[in-house]
């Protein structure tokens, strides 16, 4: 506990949430700063180094989405959106504006910690390219384009491989339908989200033990998909 894993900024106006998360995140080894308004958060970020911002979308002074776009004007700090809102379009809008991931309230602390780790990994990935992605029995080698399950090679179509690669690149963070379409079919393509669902179903047949109850390739309803990263299975 002597070394700090990362510096977090927790932005939420709900006292009871701050009261719980501060000691929990501190116990997990993070240094936690808090802000109760969007302006407070931005003035903190302007002066202090921060590794991940955990941001509630419902703030008293301004819309959480606006906080995201303002931070993104000058900072690449990973943003993890924390919201009681169950409106999919809010989440998608937040992700489109540059948020890295989201977590729905209510959540277990373990889940939040996993998202924070994924966000931190995503930040590292910007600087170093990992050649291999692992999730449980699944291993993807980007250099050789080889995919193995329990050591046995899995034969994927080029599209299935592109999809898996796109998800693996985000390493446990959510990937929206639009981002997946851009990665697999090309950025300018207009493809229905239905195509993504079909392709995901095909891929699950090959990499999941129980395709109807996936453990590796998870669905975020209405938003997109995420892969369970290596350390979470």
């Amino acid at each position: 506990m002597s070394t700090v894993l990362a510096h977090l900024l927790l932005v939420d106006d709900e006292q009871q949430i701050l009261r719980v998360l501060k000691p929990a995140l501190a116990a997990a080894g993070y240094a936690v700063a808090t802000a109760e308004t969007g302006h407070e958060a931005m003035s903190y970020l302007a002066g202090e180094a921060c590794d991940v911002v955990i941001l509630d979308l419902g703030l008293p002074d301004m819309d959480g989405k606006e906080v995201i776009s303002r931070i993104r004007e000058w900072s690449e700090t990973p943003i993890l959106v924390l919201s009681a809102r169950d409106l999919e379009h809010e989440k998608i809008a937040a992700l489109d504006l540059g948020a890295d991931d989201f977590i729905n309230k209510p959540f277990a602390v373990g889940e939040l910690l996993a998202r924070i780790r994924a966000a931190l990994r995503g930040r590292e990935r910007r600087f170093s390219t990992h050649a291999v992605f692992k999730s449980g029995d699944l291993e993807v080698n980007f250099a050789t384009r080889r995919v193995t399950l329990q050591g046995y090679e899995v034969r994927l179509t080029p599209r299935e491989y592109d999809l898996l690669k796109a998800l693996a690149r985000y390493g446990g963070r959510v990937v929206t339908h639009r981002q997946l379409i851009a990665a697999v079919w090309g950025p300018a393509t207009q493809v229905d989200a239905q195509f993504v669902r079909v392709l995901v179903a095909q891929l699950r047949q090959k990499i999941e033990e129980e395709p109807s109850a996936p453990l590796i390739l998870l669905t975020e309803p209405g938003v997109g998909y995420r892969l369970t990263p290596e350390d979470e299975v």
Partner: protein
Amino acid sequence: MAREWTFRRIAPPRGVWRYVAALAIIILSTLVAETIYRTFETDRLSMVFLAGVLVTAVTLGQGPAYFGAAAAFIIYDIYLVEPRFEFTMTSAEDFLVLIVFLAVAMLTGRLAGRVREAQSSAEARARTAGALFRASEEFSASDNEDAVRQALAERIAEAGRGQAVVLYDGRSWSAPPGLSPPEALSDLAGRPVDGGATVREAGWRLRHLRADGAVLGLAVWRLTPTDGRMADNPADDERLVDVLVDMAGAAIARSRLAEEQAEAEARARTEQLRNALLSSISHDLRTPLAAILASATSLREFGDRFDAEVREDLTLTIQEEAERLNRFVGNLLNMTKLESGALTIEGVSFGVAEVVGRVVQRVRRRAGARELVSHFTPDDLAALGDPILTEQALANIVENAVRFAPNGGRIDILGRRDAGRVVIDVIDQGPGVPDDELRMIFEKFYRSPATSTNQQGTGLGLSITRGLVEAMGGEVSARGRGDGRPGLVVSVTLPGAQA
């Protein structure tokens, strides 16, 4: 010959008095002529008779003018022309007099007739225009269809100088008031008449008010029979009434459209409110749940790494948030019960101070640095109702006051007796509510736009309070403090009980 010809013209029985009047004027002329004859001893008096014919023609119209001319000639001939008191047609002069009389009668009568016609039709036009103008003004000013029907009855009665009744849906609007139409016509009210045509029956006329194919009422009227002199064209009156009825039909259709539009807007607002409530409920349920779940999972995950203080704080969070959820769910249930009418009220006598004491206890923990002060006159003030529901109703008001009052502020709860009823005032030092919103704060989902930006809340609390209090036969109201300082006073009035 002249006589026969003249009497044929008398034929129309209507307006016989006009001929009597013509005769009277000529007889008057004769009397004048007699006077002049006796005074001045002159027999050149045809001018006096000519004047009589002229007056007759100007005042009574053409027919009486000819009649007057003939009468004047005969009397003149018998009375003044030698041999006197004997009708003779001997000289050319006699003929000349007759011809001049007849010519004057014809020309003047025709001229005067035209002037009279023009005058009476101008009057009729003015009346028609006035009636139409007032009708269109009234129709467009009234936004409810009953007012249009009443205005229509009055305008028809005025325009036709008669009586009118408008029937619709078993009700009637009449002018003059209290008038009822013949039964045979009332029976027609519900029945459509082809093409909206006027139907005549026993001196009454009727016409359906219609617009867009729908029958919007039945106008029934009887006009005063037009007198002989002011011979308005009855067809004109009828056309005027037709126009009035059609205008009223259009006005009613328009007011219905306006009503429908208002309803549609109200529906849209309700929909908006419902969405706001849904997202608000979602937030108000999830936030305590998030705190509870995060606390519980933190304790499981890091329990041994937390010191005793943090552990205590997390378990306290779980308790408080669970209580908050419980209150919220309780309020939602009460709301549902109130709306479905499933709430049964037990009217018992209870001590107000005790109930307020429990409310203060409940709220105090969340009141922070806000001071809660209660005072009762008399001490044993007792009300009639359900003490548990009263507690809930008051708790919502006090919680609202706590939510909006500044830290360090004071909330007064005063109980008093007022004309046999019990009034409980909750007085806060918050920002208050603008006068025009005071009534709305008890509406479901209503949150004042001025103060709600950074306040959590469903907009349910005060509406539940109103529902509960009204179910107990009481009422709630809100007003400003009245002492110039910001703040809100919410009053609950309940039936009083003997202490």
